[in-house]
């Protein structure tokens, strides 16, 4: 049975319950002392540190400024991944020839970690914005491409056939049929990709380190300040969740439109 929709209040209640569970788990683990406080600070410690970081600079910047410079790099790399990944995925699904050229290379290269490219990124771009953007791009690109490609490939043939029968060429077939049909899968890909792009940030910030949440976390780790590291994680978590929430909203709007 299609899972029944829940009322808004019920939904909020359950979500709150889930969040409370997470906090409880953390508190119990921290209080139990199984892990020394240096390594698992209490929620309170972390929140205090988080607040402190917003007005007291650490590693040269306040938390929000670190976040801002990270976001800038992320936006660049992610936008590039989307701009290349979606069209390429659709083209690969529509034209066999492109698929045959791109797929083998891509299938191999995507297994190389974005941070493994750090040395090359540093060699090619030095301190320029290109290095971090390349790293984030490498992280964010594969899920966009794969989900677009597979989503497009698994589009019910009858739609593709209908569009061909109605005289639509490659352009309209791709943009008006394949793309909307694959959209649910593409959005799933975007969600994963945003997550991975955001994660590659730490790697990206290994190249030019004077700002960014990744930099802040590395510094916090070296300074044995787990609260700082966790503040960074929370900041990343919040921003990442916000991006994800945006994408999920898109996903739901689409589901509703199609009566799913």
């Amino acid at each position, binding site marked *: 049975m299609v899972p029944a929709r829940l009322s808004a209040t019920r939904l909020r209640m359950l979500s709150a319950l889930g*969040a409370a569970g997470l906090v409880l788990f953390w508190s119990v683990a921290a209080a139990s002392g199984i892990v020394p406080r240096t*390594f698992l600070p209490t929620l309170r410690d972390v929140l205090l540190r988080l607040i402190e970081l917003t007005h007291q600079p650490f590693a040269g910047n306040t938390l929000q400024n670190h976040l801002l410079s990270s976001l800038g790099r992320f936006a660049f790399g992610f936008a590039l991944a989307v701009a290349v990944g979606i069209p390429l995925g659709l083209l690969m699904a529509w034209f066999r020839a492109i698929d045959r050229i791109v797929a083998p290379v891509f*299938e191999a290269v995507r297994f190389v*970690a974005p941070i493994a490219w750090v040395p090359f990124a540093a060699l090619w771009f030095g301190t320029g914005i290109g290095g971090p953007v390349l790293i984030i791009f490498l992280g964010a690109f594969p899920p966009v491409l794969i989900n677009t490609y597979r989503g497009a490939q698994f589009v019910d*043939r*009858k739609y593709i056939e209908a569009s061909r029968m109605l005289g639509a060429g490659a352009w309209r077939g791709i943009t008006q049929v394949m793309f909307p049909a694959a959209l649910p899968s593409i959005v799933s890909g975007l969600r994963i990709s*945003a997550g991975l792009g955001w994660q590659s940030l730490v790697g990206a910030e290994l190249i030019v380190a004077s700002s960014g949440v990744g930099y802040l976390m590395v510094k916090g780790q070296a300074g044995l300040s787990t609260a700082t590291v966790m503040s960074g994680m929370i900041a990343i978590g919040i921003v990442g969740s916000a*991006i994800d929430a945006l994408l999920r909203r898109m996903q739901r709007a689409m589901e509703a439109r199609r009566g799913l």
Partner: protein
Amino acid sequence: MHQRRIAAGSGPGSGVALFLGSASRALSAIGALLFVWWAATDGTGLVSSVRFPSPSETWVAWQQILWEGYGSARWHEHVIRSVALVTLGFAASASLGVALGLAMGSSRTIEALVNPAFLFLRPIPPLAWIPLAIVWLGLGDSAKGMVIFVAAFVPSVINSFSGVRQIDAPLLEASAMLDVRGWRYWREVLIPGALPSIFTGLRLSLQASWTTLVAAELVGAVAGLGQILNQGAQDIYTAMILVGMISVASCGWLMTLALGWVERRAMPWRAH
């Protein structure tokens, strides 16, 4: 019903033929790539070897790691360690991730309960877990396994989840009418219906496992392909980094081929 028609004439090839087909295609792509690489570096000197290693330099590095070793082990030892680690982390996280994704997809209550934690923990880089992994699990394989697990978990969950949500409503209704519940509902309706999407997720999880390996092997690796990359980066030994990259890429590619084979077996109703 119309999706069948496209490939109908050829019929599903045998696994071996498919493998050989994609292998030969890949080989020709690799050949072309090798040539372009050679032409750009050794051939014309367009790209200086400061920026990118040439094939000859890479060959030398390859010989070095093959016979003398690099990063405290020889090539095959690195490969074996990494493949074992990735397989373990991937298998554990994929099975749990798919299960959670399916559960979230099938019940809005579970979705609402799990979402806060999931959404929040998800964007945290695997790298960021390393200090905690060290503290919790020490320097052994379990710490590395944990980092790989965390990374591979997410794509499995998301794709399984959306796979369930994409199943045609009439099919779910039909199974409700036929009173199919519990384990049978999962095995015969939800899982097969979500399978294409689940496999998309598994592919991404496999990739995440490999890409996280480099990070994971910061947790004190005795051997492993991530170790080649880390050490190569510390030594600015670009040719060796490339050897590491090619090794990782080949391993990942081969594992994907295997996954593709499983996928075709698992979905006999699809015209491939």
